[in-house]
Structure formats: C-alpha cells, structure tokens
C-alpha cells in the first residue's frame, strides 16, 4: 500500500523541530491513477541504457524480506528471486528457483526441488542449506524485523535438507497459504551470508540475492542504483525472457511531489515514474508517455465496522449503509478509470475472488425502507434517530492513499441522503494503531495487498486482528479455518469464495473500491510489468533508441 504523509503531523513536527518558523507543506502523496491498460510493446527489445525511475515515497530499506511498502519492493524485488512465482493473469504458482514441488496431503510439508545452476551475486551457489538458513533466520533472529514473513511462516517447525538441491519445509499445522507465500518478495531467497547478517545492515543495503539486478548503491531518502547481472539465466516462467535484463542500470530517485514526477517524465528527466495522480495524466500523455495500471489484489478499500456497540451492532443497519453507497459514483466522481468499484471484499485480481456485485448494488430505496422498518426515524436535522440515539457513526482512516479523503467525503454525502451521519476522523498511522487496540472507532477504513485469498483470515478471522471486535461466528470462522487446511485447490477456492459471502452476509465489511497502481512510462520505455501482487518488475524492461 502506498504511504503518505499526514499533513497535520508534518506541520506539528516542523514547528517542533524549528520552533520559531512556520512551515507550510503541501501533501506529497502517492496515490491515484488514471488511464488505460498497458499497451502491447511493439518491436524487438534493445539492450543497454539507464532507466531513471522516480519513486513517490522513500523506501524503508532494500532488504526484500523486511520491507513492506510498494516503493521499497520496487527496488528490492529486482535483487532477489523466490522459490516460486505467481502468474498475475491466472494466479497460478509457477517454477522459479524451484523447478517443482510436492505438498503433503495434510499441508504441513512442502518439498521444493531447486535449480542447480543458480548463483548469488557474490558467486556462492543456491543450495538446500541456503533455503534452510533463510527460513530459520526469518523465524528466528529476524522475526520481529520481518513480521510479514513471520506471519507467512506461522507454525514453522523446520526446514529439512533432503539433498543438495531438495528441501522440505515443515509446519506444525496445515498451512495452505504457504505455497503462494513462497512466491512473494517477502520470502525471497538470499545468500547464506545475507541470511545471517544483521537485520539493520541488511535494510541499509547489505543484501545479496540471485535476482536479475544487483544493488550498486542505496542512500536512505535519496535513492538507489541497481545494475544488471550479465550472467542471470533463471527467470521464472512468468517473465517474457529467461536471460539477463535488457537495461544496464536502473536509477531510482525519490520525488515526493507528483507534479514534479510528471513534469520530470514529460521533460525527459525520468523514464518512468510511480504513483501518477489523475491530474498529471494529461501532462504524461501529452509528451507521448503512457500509463500502466493494475488493480492491487487483496482486501479492497473497505469500511470495517466495529460491531461491539453503537448503531452498527445491528446487521440490518450495516446492510442499509452498504446499500446506500453508490460505488460506481465513487469511481466516476473522485477516482479515475484505473479504479474499479468493489464487487466483493476481495479485489478482482485476487485468486479465489468471487463476483458478489449483486450484494453490493446501490439501492437507496431499499436502504431507506430498511432503516424505517428498524425504527430509525428522521429527526429535525435530517439525521435518523431511535430512542434518543442518532444514526451517526465515525470512520477512522490514515492518509495512506491520496484519494481517501475525497472518497470518504462522497460516501458521507451519499449516506446523508438516507439520513445517516458519517463523521470523518483522519488519524496518523500511530493514532490509528492505538485506536485499533482500544476499539475507539465505529468503522475502520483501509486496504491490504496480498495475492492470495488467505488474506481474509488475518483481517476477518476472530483470531486475526478482529477489527470488527466481534464474537465467534461459526460460519465464517469455520470457513477461514477450513481454507487453511484444504489441500484441494478447487475446494480451497470454494471456501474462500464462501468466506467472502459470509463476510458480506453479516456485513463485516462495507467494500468501497479496488486500489490500483499507476505507473507513467515515457514513450521509449517498454516491458515494465506488474507481478501478481501488482508490484513492478524490470527484468523485461528496455528502452528504445539506447
């Protein structure tokens, strides 16, 4: 998910740090996008050249296993390969460092057969012990610094070295999501030396992987330069070509202002830029550039209600609220073509997604009727009341995504039309974390990126973060527990599909819209692609005329 700056926080801090001065900062936000689908790249790839990429925010580091933000992954993903890859079109798991694998029937043992020709950029070979060293470190010393990896490896017991190029990863309980997790950048395989290195040093650049690019330099808050590995020859089946990358070098700089990114691209100072805002699309297309967009898989942007108290404790009210929201209008009015209205709690690019648009149709009349029937009558100010209580609730949100405020303001208007009051509470990341613990919110607005339907379990399972603050729900909890132990892919997809229905049945989430990535590329740049998690890959990228 893109990361932005809470303007309030920045102002406060600027005032704090430099007391006598007044700093006015505008919001430097990565975010929304517009434009069409990536066009087919015509012509024969050309080798050479430097691709200059402007990131919208600062990476938190370059260690594939520790970073979580999109911009960090844009760099880190190029440095390392994973055991498997995931086809962004089909969601299928494909060979990468592992040529094949077997999964035990009880989903506790995953055996991977590794390629025998892979070397890391320090010259050391990929062996079974390397994989073991990586997973042992991720569940040991690195654990707290790599929380996402730790959650993918929950229940990890050991990695058995079967022979030089075969490993078996063993879990205490069934872990159906692990195979997809093995394709993520978070579980990328790094060299033996890196696996045991200090986590902080790794974040700062002490990272050796087997990827198509090697880190040349990284300066925090300034940028990174990566150079191609001429002897790379083990791209996954998902890539267009197997050998070394086409461009010699990629120069990432951090450009927080979207207008500067777009202007820089249009004036030829960048070859590609991240987080293009709708207002900058014209400048990019005017200069012959184009826009690449892809919907992020995972949980769409939702309002997740706290069902423990207040009017939203009533499922009839929650359903009426959901019916009163016109999702198409959100996209048409305040977002852009790149975005889609939510048609389930999962985004359409998530494996296991089911289209539940019939449950998310806009129907203000039905919402009005339901609220009338539930005894909520309109008061003098137009807001419904019942037993002296107003039909009013708040939403907490962190400004992680530039379009959020506008989206929520429009939702506010739409709800107002049926006599429901929505109060917007923008919080900093820190305040939001605190509110999450205390339960001091009526609805929680967020999204999560993950290219596997298992993301429902941590977000909606009663054992997960339980943002709903709900009690047991045998139907949903049963489906989520079952999904994780289901070996049969079709049966697992079925459970994930039913879980989406169960979430909407009880309105544990009010889905709004699907987040999309939007990347601007200059007219000479081809072959920049998205992986299954909608993060960028540069292995197939080339620049015409270089």
């Amino acid at each position, binding site marked *: *998910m893109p990361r932005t*700056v809470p303007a309030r*926080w*920045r102002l406060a*801090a*600027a*005032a*704090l*740090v*430099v*007391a*006598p*001065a*007044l*700093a*006015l*900062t*505008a919001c*430097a936000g990565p975010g929304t996008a517009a434009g069409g689908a990536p066009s087919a790249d015509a012509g024969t790839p050309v080798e050479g050249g430097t691709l200059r990429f*402007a990131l919208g925010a600062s990476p*938190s*580091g370059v260690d594939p296993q520790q970073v*979580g*933000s999109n911009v960090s992954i844009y760099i880190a993903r190029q440095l390392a390969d994973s055991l498997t890859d995931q086809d962004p079109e089909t969601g299928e798991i494909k060979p990468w460092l592992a040529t094949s694998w077997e999964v035990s029937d009880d989903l506790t043992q995953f055996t991977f057969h590794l390629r025998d020709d892979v070397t890391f950029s320090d010259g050391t070979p990929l062996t079974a012990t390397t994989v073991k060293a990586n997973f042992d470190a991720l569940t040991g010393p690195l*654990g*707290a*610094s*790599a*929380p*996402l990896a*730790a*959650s993918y490896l929950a229940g990890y017991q050991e990695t058995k070295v079967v022979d030089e190029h075969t490993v078996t990863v063993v879990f205490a309980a069934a872990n159906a999501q692990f195979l997809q997790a093995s394709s993520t950048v978070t579980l990328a395989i790094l060299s033996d030396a890196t696996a045991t290195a200090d*986590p*902080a040093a790794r*974040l*700062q650049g002490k990272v050796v992987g087997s990827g198509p690019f090697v880190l040349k330099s990284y*300066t*925090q*808050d300034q940028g990174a330069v990566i150079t191609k590995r001429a002897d790379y020859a083990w791209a996954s089946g998902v890539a267009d070509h197997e050998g070394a990358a086409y461009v010699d070098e990629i120069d990432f*700089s*951090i*450009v*927080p*202002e979207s*207008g*500067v990114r777009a*202007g820089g691209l*249009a*004036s030829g*100072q960048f070859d590609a830029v991240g987080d293009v805002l709708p207002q900058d699309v014209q400048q990019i297309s005017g200069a012959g550039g184009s826009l690449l967009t892809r919907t992020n898989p995972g949980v769409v942007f939702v309002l997740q209600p706290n069902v423990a108290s207040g009017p939203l404790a009533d499922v009839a009210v929650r359903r009426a609220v959901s019916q009163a929201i016109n999702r198409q209008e959100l996209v048409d009015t305040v977002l852009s073509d790149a975005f889609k209205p939510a048609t389930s709690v999962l985004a359409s690019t998530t494996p296991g997604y089911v289209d539940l648009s019939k449950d998310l149709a806009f129907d203000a009349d039905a919402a009005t009727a339901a609220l009338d029937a539930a005894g909520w009558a309109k008061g003098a100010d137009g807001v419904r009341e019942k037993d002296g209580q107003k039909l009013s609730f708040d939403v907490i949100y962190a400004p992680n995504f530039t379009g959020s405020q506008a989206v929520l303001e429009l939702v506010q208007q739409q709800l107002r039309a049926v006599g429901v009051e929505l109060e917007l509470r923008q919080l900093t*990341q*820190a*305040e939001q*974390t605190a509110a999450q*613990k205390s339960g001091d919110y009526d609805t929680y607005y*967020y999204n*999560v990126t*993950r290219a596997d339907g298992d993301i429902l379990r*941590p977000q909606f399972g009663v054992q*997960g973060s339980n943002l709903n603050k709900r009690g047991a729900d045998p139907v949903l909890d049963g489906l989520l527990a079952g999904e994780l132990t289901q070996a049969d892919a079709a049966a697992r997809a079925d459970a994930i599909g039913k879980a989406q229905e169960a979430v909407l049945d009880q309105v544990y989430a009010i889905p709004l819209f699907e987040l999309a990535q939007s990347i601007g590329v200059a007219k000479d740049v081809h072959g920049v692609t998205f992986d299954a998690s909608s993060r960028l890959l540069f292995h197939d990228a080339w620049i015409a005329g270089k």
Partner: protein
Amino acid sequence: MTRYVLGRVLAAAAVLWAAFTVSFVVLYLLPSDPVSVMLDNASAGQSVDPAQVAALRARYGFDQGPLQQYLSQLGHTLTGDLGTSLSSGAPVRELIGQALPQTAALAGLALVIAVVVGGGVALLASWTRSDRLRGLLLALPPLGVAVPGFWVGLLLLQLFSFRWYWFPAVGNEGFASLVLPAVTLAIPASASVAQVLAQGLDAAWRSPYVETALAKGATRTRVLTRHVVRNAVLPALTVLGVLVGHLLAGSVVAETVFSRQGFGRLVEEAVTVQDIPVVQGLVVVAAVVFVLVNLLVDLAYPLLDPRIDLTAAAGRGLLRLPRRSRSAGVPGRAAVPAAPAELRSAA
C-alpha cells in the same frame, strides 16, 4: 565580556536542555509506541507474535519506565550518541551528518541570495528619490512573505526545469541542482531582510545627524553608505539569527518539492513513520544550530556598534541595546557621542 559570554553559553545550554526535554515529553506522550507503528508499517496489518514485539521493544529500550528512558537518552545525547533509527537501523548521528551538509549548502546559498536581494531592495528603496519606484520596491517584501514557498518551487520547476531545461528538477548533484531550491528558500528570507532593513534605513534617514551631514555637503549616496546603513544594519542582523531558523524550517518544503536529501526531508520522513530517535536527534541538532547562530549574532553586536556595552549588561545576562537611538527624531543618550564621531569622517 567573559561573564557575558559565559552567561550566554549557560543560557544556550538551558535552551538545549529544554528543547530535549520538551520534545521527549511530546514524543513520549504520543498515543502509540514506535514499535507498534514500525510493525504496523511492515506487517501490512497481519498479526505479529507478541513475544517478538516484546523482544523488539526491549531492544530499543521502550520497555523501561519514562524516567529511565529519559535519563538514559539524555546521557547518550550528552555523549553525542543520538541512538539508531527505528525505520532504517542506521545511527541517527550518521543520518543527520549526511543530511546537514546538504541543507547547510542550500541554506547558505539562500542566505547569501537573501542578503544580496533583500539588502539591495531596501538600499535602493532608501536611496531613490522616485516615490513610485520606492513604493514599488517596498511592496515587494509583503509579497515575498505572502507567496507560499511550495507554490513558488513548483512554478520555478515548471519554467526553468520542465520548459526551458536550465536546471535539473531533482537531486543533490552539483551547483545547478542547488539554484532553484535556494531561490525558493530565499524569497521569504529576502523579504524579511528587506522589510527590517528598509524600516531601519527609514528611521535612520530621519535622524538629526543625517540633516547635519547633508548640510555639510555630503552626497545622498555618501550619507547612505557612511552613516545610515551603519545605524540601520543592527536590527537586520538580529533578523539574520531568526532567519536561520526559518531556513531550516523552509528546507522541509524546498527539499520535498525539489526531491533533495537534507535536514528537511529527514524531518518529514522521520515524522511520518514516527521514528522517535531520529525526530529527537533532529530537535537537538536544530536547537544547537539555532542557539549557536544567535550566540554569534549576539557576540557580533559590539563589533558593529561600539556603543553596545556587553559588560554592563552581563550582570543580568541580558543584552541592552540602545533602542531609542534608532527611533526617529529622538536621539537616545547613547547615540549622542556616536553621531559626531561619524560626522567627522563625513565632513
């Protein structure tokens, strides 16, 4: 003189201690602890083993009580150890050490531009006999303060980088990359300089010694350069001390718009992710810079104006300026001996 300097240094130390303490209290009182924020950023909302959270908290010392944390941090800060960044794991001293020279270059150039442009505007307005030109020039400072730096920066970029390709839009490489952000930063600073200097010059022009000098046949230019400027420069110097603070704060905007590495960007980044050790380190360093500059300004007064008697004020630790000498038409006691001395050279 020694007592005065000693008093100033002690006062400076007190300011630094206060800056550290206030920022510690504010940061400590934030609703969420930094480890949770850090994990929240990294884990994309997935649950994390509580034992690992506790381990991480212990590693950074967040498991201790507030007083213990305060004392241990204060001790480390006094020895120059500002801790390590939570988000990157790099030593805070190193991060600030990398950022500060970039911002120093930027702020330095901006200060030079501010003094030259701001001083030039004020002097020209003071020297000219055309009321129209004078009015025009004096309208500039309010305008310079009013336009948002953010907007100016984007405007400069559109023209000089995206349209005419004169300067790079981003980066820290070379002098060319310094020009546009320095100009952005210098606009409000030159406005302050021009405003204060123009007022000082205006007051000085109305002093009796100006009339005397003119009566003795000195030219307008000579009166301006020999007498008026010397008397008007003191308040402008005071403003310079404050300006350094403004420039540091302005670097948040300038460095963000122009994608430069430096103090301001570091502030913005650290605050966003609630990287408490970095924020705390930045507060301390900013306070040190600010206190040092103001100390230098204080010490420079007597060099510029011998009427200022530091020893007399030392007892109270305060600097007594001959304020009335600058007010129009009413020569202060201290001003009386100075004016004839200057007039002798004018005649």
